[in-house]
């Protein structure tokens, strides 16, 4: 694929003696939505976090937008500004209001004026449906509202790609839908996304491709219709049997 935005080439990662990413190759095109699934401990989070270098890799290369990931420093900060990250536990800045959470990056990293950042921030909060919560602190919001705020915070940087690490796993069931709805909107709008999730419904409807990981390896990848209808490997069949029977 020539228009790949994100490329992982023979990536390996160890935590001590634990080999968590084994020769991982993955290429994500601009505008593509890739859902990563797999059993617990298979390395999904590590894969996701290595793309904006929250985890460093031990061998192989990761390129973003045609350039290898920079080491520490300004270049790395610039890369991270272009890659939005949404965490399982939201990680909103606890001492700041929702709007200040959303404008911190644009004003300090992108050097936008406060007025511009606030205007665009409010527009994004409107889009994710929590404009009325702009002045509150994170602890005053429900989990679903917090996660939507975290998505708005990432979007405020006008990222070229977004990484989601189990964005709905910490939510009460009744709040999962509102977050997935925002993510589906982003996917339809052409955002490049890598989404680690256990939400098979989202994978079916919003993904262009499903990547199945086990033991630090990408075992299988296919468009969702194909993957869910006839998984090729025993491990994927096994995994699907477990999650879909719930």
């Amino acid at each position, binding site marked *: 694929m020539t228009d790949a935005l994100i490329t992982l080439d023979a990536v390996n990662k160890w935590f001590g003696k634990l080999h968590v990413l084994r020769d991982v190759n993955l290429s994500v095109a601009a505008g593509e939505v890739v859902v990563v699934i797999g059993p617990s401990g298979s390395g999904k989070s590590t894969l996701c976090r290595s793309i*904006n270098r*929250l985890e460093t890799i031990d061998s192989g290369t990761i390129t973003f937008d045609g350039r290898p990931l920079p080491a*520490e420093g*300004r270049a790395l*900060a*610039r*890369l*991270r*500004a*272009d*890659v*939005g*990250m949404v*965490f399982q*536990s939201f*990680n*909103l*800045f*606890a*001492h700041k209001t929702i709007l200040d959470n959303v404008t*911190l*990056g644009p004003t*300090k*990293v992108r050097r936008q004026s406060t007025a511009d950042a606030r205007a665009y921030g409010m527009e994004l909060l409107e889009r994710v449906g929590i404009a009325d919560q702009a002045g509150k602190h994170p*602890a005053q919001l429900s989990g679903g509202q917090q996660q939507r705020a*975290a998505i708005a*915070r*990432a979007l405020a*940087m006008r990222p070229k790609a977004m990484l989601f690490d189990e964005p709905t796993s910490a939510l009460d069931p009744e709040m999962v839908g509102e977050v997935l709805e925002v993510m589906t909107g982003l996917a339809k709008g052409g955002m490049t996304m890598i989404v680690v999730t256990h939400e098979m419904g989202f994978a079916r409807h919003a993904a262009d491709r499903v990547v199945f990981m086990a033991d630090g390896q990408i075992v299988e990848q296919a468009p969702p219709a194909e993957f869910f209808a006839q998984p090729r490997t025993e491990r994927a069949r096994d995994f699907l049997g477990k999650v879909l029977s719930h």
Partner: protein
Amino acid sequence: MEVFSDKLDVFWNGFLGTVQMCLLAAVGALILGALVAVLRISPIPPLRAVGTAYVTVFRNVPLTVVMFFAAFALPLLGSDASFLKIPGLRDVIKPLGTDLPYFRFATIALTLYTTAFVCEALRSGIGAVPLGQAEAARSLGLSFTQNLRHVVLPQAWKLAIVPLGSVIIAMVKNSALAAAFGVIVTLMGVVDELVSQQYYDAVPVFLGVAVGFLILTIPLGLLLDMVERSQKKVATR
């Protein structure tokens, strides 16, 4: 007990001297302590090593020894710490500007010593900020210093305020040692002046000195209790 009516001005001057030394040392130690704390968590290993070495040395040497070095080693190096004769400041805090350097020496020693404890209190506060906060800041593209300034430190200060208060209270009590190194015009210096030189009874003089320290430390302690209670309330809201 006539010492109180006769010599109240001596007590008062000693009290003022202690207040002045403690104010200087507290401000100095908070600033230096924040700097050393930043060194200790810096991503650059040599800077980290400097911070760690500083804390290890000053936390594990008795204050008396630090005072000794300030009072006897600085003069050997040819310094009477006159860099502390800061214009403006020396008009408000008179002992800074005197020819006798002992007030300055003791203040430097108290500051350097307290800095190590301020650093550790701050570091405990920084450690109590959830890791996800710094990760979120990094993934927005904030630099190390922006991350500290806008995300980590504002939260760490609040978490460190109670341990910091304990450090400052300990510092006020530690300041008593300055009298042994020639600083006459402090609370403990009152003992030297009234008991050793003017032969007043030791017990009432020490009582007066104790009251002087309590006037400084008890309100600080009450303030800390209040902060702690209001933080608990926020936490359980």
